[in-house]
């Protein structure tokens, strides 16, 4: 088995005080394309900095693809898009080996997963077989094809979208796939003021997401993510996190509670959220702020909207103080 490095290590080029500057540039760039959704953008940034993957679920035309493209172009890395359809094959995502007549050898052709940002549009329209091709890529940032394991970029970030309304010909994502996403977000309709600004921007030329200039490099993104992972989490906060996880597992209405992988992701997203708030340590406030997007993607049960249930869980578990 051989390991092929598709991306070399990048030198550190972010100064210690540059975190806020870089994040602010990223924030402003995305907000310039997706109007009136600062809270959504903030959570998307937290997901990106936590090295998690994002699932956007909303109605058509609300800016899911725009958000994903804006994010990819702002980072400045390689962007790939897969329009998921029922006839999409796993090799169409991961890549395949092709016989070269000149060299008389098989050569590996990289698929879309070999990118910095992968947009899997309408992911629930792909067959479960094709959806499963993303398992290894999302969890371990590598793909195994034939007898070779190919490492993906360290900033590999999946943004998947799905339409909750049009369910004809759709294949719901399995629990194992959902658990690999860090959070699920809904964009929602913009406010009237945001819509007015959006209409004004369209006069005299479109403001496309693809016209964005990269504000940070993938190297800088990697350093930002390293800074986030160093954010301190006190033991009492970790115990609080565990108590919340146990509460999800013991709740009578929740069939599938929080997994250990989900627990780790929740802590990482909380670290990113704390860093975005300018702190180097996590508080219970951070855990609660990101609880709904993190838990709503992985709690299974017979409830249309998990948000009230999650609020109830947060109210029932004592917050550690003194």
């Amino acid at each position, binding site marked *: 088995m051989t390991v092929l490095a598709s991306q070399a290590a990048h030198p550190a080029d972010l100064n210690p005080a540059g975190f806020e500057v870089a994040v602010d540039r990223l924030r402003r760039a995305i907000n310039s394309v997706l109007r009136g959704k600062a809270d959504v953008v903030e959570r998307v940034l937290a997901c990106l900095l936590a090295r998690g993957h994002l699932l956007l679920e909303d109605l058509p035309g609300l800016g899911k693809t725009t958000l994903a493209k804006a994010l990819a172009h702002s980072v400045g890395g390689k962007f790939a898009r897969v329009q998921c359809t029922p006839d999409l094959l796993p090799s169409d995502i991961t890549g395949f080996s092709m016989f070269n007549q000149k060299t008389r050898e098989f050569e590996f052709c990289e698929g879309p997963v070999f990118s910095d940002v992968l947009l899997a549009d309408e992911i629930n329209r792909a067959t479960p077989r094709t959806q499963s091709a993303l398992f290894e890529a999302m969890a371990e940032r590598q793909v195994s094809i034939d007898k070779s394991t190919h490492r993906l970029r360290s900033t590999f970030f999946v943004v998947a979208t799905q339409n909750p309304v049009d369910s004809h010909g759709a294949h719901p994502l399995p629990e194992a796939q959902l658990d690999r996403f860090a959070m699920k977000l809904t964009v929602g309709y913009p406010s009237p003021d945001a819509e007015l600004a959006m209409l004004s921007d369209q006069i005299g030329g479109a403001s496309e997401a693809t016209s964005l200039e990269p504000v940070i490099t993938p190297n800088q993104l990697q350093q930002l993510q390293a800074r986030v992972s160093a954010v*301190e989490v006190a033991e009492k906060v970790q115990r609080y996190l565990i108590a919340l996880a146990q509460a999800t597992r013991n709740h009578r209405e929740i069939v599938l509670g929080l997994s250990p992988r989900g627990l780790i992701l929740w802590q990482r997203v909380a670290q990113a959220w704390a860093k975005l708030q300018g702190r180097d340590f996590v508080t219970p406030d951070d855990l609660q702020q990101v609880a709904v997007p993190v838990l709503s993607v992985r709690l299974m049960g017979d409830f249309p909207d998990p948000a009230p249930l999650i609020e109830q869980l947060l109210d*029932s578990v004592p917050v550690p103080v003194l």
Partner: protein
Amino acid sequence: MPGRPITRIAASALPLVSTALLHVTLSADDPSTAWTLCELGGTVLLCLGARGPVTRYAVALMAGVALLPLAINLLRQGAGVGLPLETQLTLGLRNLMLLLALCGGRLAAHGISAGLADALAGLASLFVVLFAVLRTPTALAYALAAGYVLLGLWWLARTSWAELEGRFAPSGAIQGKRWRATRGPSWWVFAGCGLAVLCCGLAFREATSTTSLWGFMPSSGGQLDYSEVANGGIGDGDQLVAAQQNPSSVGPIETDLFIESKQASLFDVFNELGELPLGHRKSSRAIALAPDRLIHHHLKKLTVNEQAGREFSTVRNKPQTQRQGEQRTSDALMYVTGRVPLHLAVRRYDTWDGRNLSFRYPKPPAAFKLSDPDGAGDRWAIVSYLRPAWFGPEEEHELRIIHLKSDRLPSPGLVTAARIDELNSADLFRWSADASLRMDVEAIPPLSTIHLKSQCGSTDWSGLDLATHAPATAEPFPKIAALARSWVEGVPAGCQQVEALCERLKKHCVLDPEAVVPSKTKDTLEHFLTQSRRGPSYLFAASAAVMLRSLGYESRVVSGFYADPKRYDPVSKRTPVLAEDLHFWVEIKSTSGFVFLRNGDRIPGTWLPVEPSPGHTLLGPQPGWRQRVVMAAHAALHWALQNAWLIALSAATLTVLMSLRTPAADLLLTAVWEFARRGGSERSHVLWTLWLIEWRASLRRRARPKGEPLGAWLLRGAPEGGAASPSEEFVKLAQWALYGGRTVRPTTGDRLAVLCRQAVRPAPSKKDPR
């Protein structure tokens, strides 16, 4: 689908049912319901009042509720209603059980999840139920236990089913729990307890077990520290003695063991323990008897008893002082169950010669017949029927003979029926020659239980006819007769004269058991009434009888026992009758009522008890519920008037304390904060400030919701009811102190002190906007 809340409800019901069962069984012999309710209420308040997640004080709370019964028992012992040690320990277990049931969901931080708390509470409730049922197996206890078993089985099945469906955390999660508190105080508690035990061990290392226990363990009197519930120390407590004397648990009642006993007899009571007549001691000579005339030595004393009891001298020695042994043992002659005071007649005297009371005129013997008037299957020996129009309803008393060795059956004056369990023959009951109840045995066996029915007189004597006799031609005691006539001068004849005479006698003389008549006195009553005016009850009774006879009323003196209500034991609900309760009173004859004779005839007339001695009262009719309410209200009002100042002072103090409790507690907490923050680190300074803020909010009933983070709570101004909120800078500082770990402090040390001071400054004086 099995729902977990229903399981939780059932799990909470198990401790409640077991608590109810425990208190049902405890209330059977523990009359101090107020203490029990106080202790139970305190426990529930402690559990319910525990703040928030009970993270910090859980260990102290558990220890507190477990030790609460032991602490309260110290107060109970001071009030004379202590509890045995095993009951105290069970109450402690009950408190822990209630704590788990009420606070189970808030102990998660200590590794006790809600499900585990329910399981532990259920286990404790099982032990409590077993203790209660085995302790007092009553029908109600069995019924509650059956309900508990059904509920418990249902709970177990439900829980098992829910676990099968994966509704609960996997068992591995429970096994991995930590059982020890995570914070420091638990170590301090354990270390402190260990140090205390070590110090006690060193202090008493050279003492014997007896001296080391002295003062720590309650005893039955051997160490001058008496407790009726003692089950350790020196000797046994009264309750253990009472248990040994309970005939329901003792089989033999007429064995040689008891008949050959050296215990005191009725003869001893009259002649040795009580008051010994002068010149009674005589030398005796042994005479050999033929085997067929041989009297066993245990019957010899009884024969003397019968002979000696025919006459009672009023010229006697002073009563001997009771010997106080180091061991406290029961010296009761009998126990009376039922209403007291009760006059229990043993002998009657109808003749007075100036010095001695004696009996000369035997009454015709009467027979008894067995009957079952109540239809309850009990065979009663009917003694007499009385007119219910004047006398009160029949009332039952139970006599438990202990040290009374006599064939005489102490009975109330107006006795109507007698019964001994498992006795089917009426021939065992007899009349003595002096018209007193006796049994056809050598001696009533110790531990015998005798049930007596009697009627008590009404308080209204107006409709009662008294038997009179023609005045004697030659008055034998003219001075006494003149005194009697002077006392009742102007009082209408009949019952009013009897009452007036007795009341006057009570005021005229003083009851003094040690004031004996000089041995050379010829007429003891004249000396008593005119000179000393002080003496024992037999002088009062003899004086009253002689004076009543001089007025033409038929009267006689009765000796027996007075069941004193001061000796009533609320725990056992019985009144012990001791040797010093020997008492004399008078009976006058009424033409009401009749007594059955053997041939079916009836003797009209009833002897009614009259009490001439001060400090003694006759048993009145049983009050109805209205009278009881009025009496209770009257007693309460009387007590309130007597303690008006105390009540007013208590109410004023309570009012002041209640109105000032918040500022006083605030002042105290602030003082603690001022003291604690000095000398500590900057982080501890902030943490103490947060401690003060949270406590202040709790005092103002604005405690932080358990699921709300501190930062959000502070920023929305919740501690001050929205009127003011700490600065955002302080909130960041607080978050750093709580969760920051090794990260850099967000502000300087001087600024930190200023921020803390600003955060704990007193709230604005304006009223709460809520």
